[in-house]
């Protein structure tokens, strides 16, 4: 009656399923792998070019531009000095090159996530049906252990930068999608109604009202996306993405505590810089919208 053992599937059947799926996917990747790789070629060349640009440029030039960007976006001397000091520290401890590599890939991943995520979020906000389909997908993307989706990506594209970028984007894109959707849905109904009442077309509505008013929420999503991308650096290094992740990985296998700590701290420094800079920028950009929240 009550067997102790769960009535599970026959082992042979399970094996058959596994074999079927695995070989099916293998065949698929053999057949289309090259094609897909060619599809990503432009992105790969860009990645290499951008990384090389950061590496080849003299350190003081990179540092100046970086601090310049941060100051331009935030108008905060404190923050700019903080950024300047952290990068000096990183460079002094010999992590300049890896930091540049990580920064280049994170920047590209963030840009891709924003470029894909905002339109997807907009579509979601416009249709409840799209939202119903996309939300569970995002849940899967955020909770599925990264290693699991690394497998098919690596099977398809091998080890290297592109699979790394794909893995990072999959992991990091959900917040920007979710918060774009949320932000647009939360836009004050009366302001939207005003737009409609004056005869705004749907593009005028989106560009003139919905996007600007949801910008605080979208910026929060972008900020989250950057943070999540950075937290993927170590895992991405397992499939051949160079940067600060690799020494961390090496220190785990070889038990180099100090090396791990230093590189870990460098990742943290990058995270803080990105985080503070993007937040301060967002705040500055929305300084007139104070009335909105209490409206």
């Amino acid at each position, binding site marked *: 009656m009550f067997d102790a053992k769960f009535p599970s599937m026959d082992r042979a059947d399970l094996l058959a399923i596994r074999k079927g799926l695995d070989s099916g996917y293998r065949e698929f990747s053999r057949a289309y792998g090259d094609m897909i790789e060619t599809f990503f070629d432009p992105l790969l060349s860009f990645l290499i070019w951008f990384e090389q640009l950061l590496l080849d440029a003299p350190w003081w030039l990179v540092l100046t531009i970086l601090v310049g960007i941060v100051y331009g976006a935030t108008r905060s001397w404190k923050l700019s000095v903080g950024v300047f000091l952290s990068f000096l520290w990183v460079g002094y401890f010999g992590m300049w090159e890896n930091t540049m590599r990580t920064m280049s890939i994170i920047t590209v991943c963030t840009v891709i996530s924003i470029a894909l995520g905002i339109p997807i979020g907009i579509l979601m906000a416009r249709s409840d049906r799209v939202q119903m389909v996309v939300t569970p997908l995002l849940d899967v993307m955020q909770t599925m252990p990264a290693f699991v989706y690394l497998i098919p990506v690596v099977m398809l594209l091998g080890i290297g930068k592109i699979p790394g970028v794909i893995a990072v984007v999959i992991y990091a894109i959900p917040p920007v999608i979710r918060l774009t959707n949320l932000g647009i849905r939360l836009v*004050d109904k*009366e*302001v939207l*109604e*005003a*737009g*409609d*009442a*004056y*005869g*705004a*077309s749907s593009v*005028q509505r989106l560009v*003139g*009202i919905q996007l*600007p*008013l949801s910008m605080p929420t979208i910026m929060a999503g972008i900020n989250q996306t950057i943070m999540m991308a950075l937290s993927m650096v170590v895992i991405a290094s397992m499939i051949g993405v160079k940067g600060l992740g690799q020494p961390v990985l090496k220190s785990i296998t070889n038990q180099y505590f100090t090396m791990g700590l230093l590189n870990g701290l460098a990742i943290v420094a990058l995270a803080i810089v990105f985080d503070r800079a993007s937040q301060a920028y967002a705040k500055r950009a*929305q300084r*007139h*919208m*104070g*009335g*909105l929240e209490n*409206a």
Partner: protein
Amino acid sequence: MRDTQIQVDGLYKIFGKDPISVMPLIEQGKTKDEILAETGHTVGLLDINLQIQKGETFVIMGLSGSGKSTLIRHFNRLIDPSVGQILVEGTDVMQLGKKELQEFRRHKMSMVFQRFGLMPHWSVVDNVAYGLKVQGIDKTERRAKAQEWLNTVGLGGYEEQYPSQLSGGQQQRVGLARALCTDAEILLMDEAFSALDPLIRSEMQDQLIELQEKLHKTIIFITHDLDEALRLGDRIAILKDGMLVQVGPPVEILLSPADDYVEAFVKDVNRARALTVDNVMKPPAYRVTAETIGGALKQMKNSTGDYGYYFNKDGYQGILLKETLESVPPTSLDDQLNAENWQVLPGISPDALLEEVIPDTLATEYPLPVIDDKGGLKGELSRDCLADVLGGKSRSV
């Protein structure tokens, strides 16, 4: 007769999944609450028929939830009707395609919102210019025009401020300027002044009245404040649970409410401030123009009252009492009427508010004559009559 600008025929609005399925229940005469309980559908509007004339200020009143916002949003199709027709200048708005509807909204109507509905990320001048921006008019031109309207509403100098930096009253002036900036003929105002405190509110009412005297727009104004309705409206429509219970000029609403609901509405209104002498005066007793005492007495014979208002070539002079005239000796009957024969009694203007004439009316036992600015006798106002009206008694008009 003025032209009809908006005509609403047999309009029903039912909120819910399948509005048409509820129509039979409505025809059976079930109430809004019954329908909600049975089907989960909310009846928003029930068989509305209206005509709004060009250039009039049409006020829609009703308690919260009576369907005022729902009705006004049908005029520019922010809400689609379940059944019925809305004609704006003869065009059936339901027949408009997407592009046509946009054009219609851009040029025919503009709207002012209760919570202002301003774009918080744009400066005041850009907010005012919004309607023109949507129309695709270039920046310099639209800003110039917006600037003019800002000056008109008294906000010159605030153009580069952001809405969050303005007070409520100022924000609503921006809302008003935005609505006027597109030169649309029809102005929809959904509780436009409800969020403002009483003082600012009456200032805004003054401003609207003043603007309307110049612009002659068709204004559809929603409020749940009867004083505001009486002040602004050429006609007032009263909604109750989605039904139109009464439409008419303010005096009619005040003095002959259609049912208890309307009566409850008008009960608390300050009639002394809402009604003019013209609204409540009675036909005059008698106008005496004879030159002699005997002539005057002869003229007054036909009158029921025991007094008459005396007019000579200089206009109204005072009140003549039968009693006084009869007491003169018969030999003096051919004497000219002189100032000793009549009593001085102030005349009042038909446009005066009751409030203004209370002291004079109460000061004498005789009704005051109502005299228009051409010197003609229009009617009379007695203190009993005044007391009746102010005491809340209705009268059939």
